């Protein structure tokens, strides 16, 4: 039998510690089910709030990774989803403070290539230009409220603001967007 050196012992201990550290907050099947339900809407949220599809791809992966590493106790699926959106919102906020040049007054978000849809290309461009001129939090709020049909408490949880403030903030954001949509460049 080969001698076991202190390095081998250290490596063995290290592997055990490694397994403990690698353990993620969900098992693979549960993660897949949750991901399949939430990834599409979350990507849409990230792409529209950040105004950058490439960034949305990166932030999506990062958001799920942080969720998996969080080991937070969730009461239900909705609680987990709100937590995921909170992570995503913070990531967009951090990206805004970082070196990546997004949120350039609508330049990026207006530059997202338009896919085929019911609205005309001119209308889609107008909406994106208007969205791009909103603050990220206003974009996030309107997106959650209208595109995803989130309740005030869900929006509050995702954005980290008081539920009581949402009504007023949403009102202001709505008026601002309507004003921007009304004034064509």
């Amino acid at each position, binding site marked *: 039998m080969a001698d076991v050196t*202190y390095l081998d*012992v*250290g490596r063995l*201990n*290290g592997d055990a*510690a*490694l397994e403990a*550290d*690698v353990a*993620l907050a969900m098992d*693979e099947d549960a*993660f*897949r089910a949750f*991901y*399949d339900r939430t*990834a*599409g*809407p*979350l*990507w*849409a949220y990230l*792409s*529209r709030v950040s105004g950058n*599809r490439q960034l949305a*791809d990166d932030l*999506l*992966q990062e958001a*799920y*990774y942080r969720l*998996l*590493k969080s080991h937070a106790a969730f009461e239900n699926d909705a609680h987990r989803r709100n937590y995921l959106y909170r992570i995503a919102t913070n990531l967009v906020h951090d990206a805004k403070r970082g070196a990546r040049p997004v949120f350039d007054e609508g330049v990026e978000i207006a530059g*997202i290539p*338009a*896919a*085929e*849809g*019911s*609205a005309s290309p001119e*209308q*889609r461009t107008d*909406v*994106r230009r*208007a*969205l791009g001129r909103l603050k990220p939090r206003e974009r996030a709020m*309107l*997106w959650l*409220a*209208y*595109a*995803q049909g989130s309740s005030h408490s869900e929006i509050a949880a995702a954005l980290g603001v008081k539920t009581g403030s949402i009504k007023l903030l949403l*009102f202001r954001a*709505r*008026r601002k*967007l*309507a*004003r921007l*949509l*009304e004034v064509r460049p």
Partner: protein
Amino acid sequence: MTQFTDEQIEAIVAEAMTAEASVARTEAAPPSAAIVWWRAQMRARREAAQLADKPIAIVHALAIACGGGLTLALVGIVIAAVRGSVGWLTDIYASTASLVTTLAASDLSSRWITLPLTAMLVSVVIASIAAVFVLRDE
């Protein structure tokens, strides 16, 4: 903007956002759950390995720093001892005697002696502790 009522504003925004949401749904092409899961696993393993290596790297760096300090301290003592002595290269015995004599006769309060000696003692203590950390089994 003053022409619109709150209901009209609500309708304008709702229509715009709903249209944009339907476009976004068609654009959304996130990677598969399997890929995201696999990347998360790989990243968690890498970060755990980095975390496990960190204390060892710190102890190694500490031991190397102490070794360097010890060497410098010894060099400092030797230089201090042989300062002023001539011909030590030609007569190693005389030089050694000179070193011992100089050390014995030197004023221990002199900074040329006390600083290197203190550095040496501190280095020996820290290096011993570092060695214990490196060589221990757990």
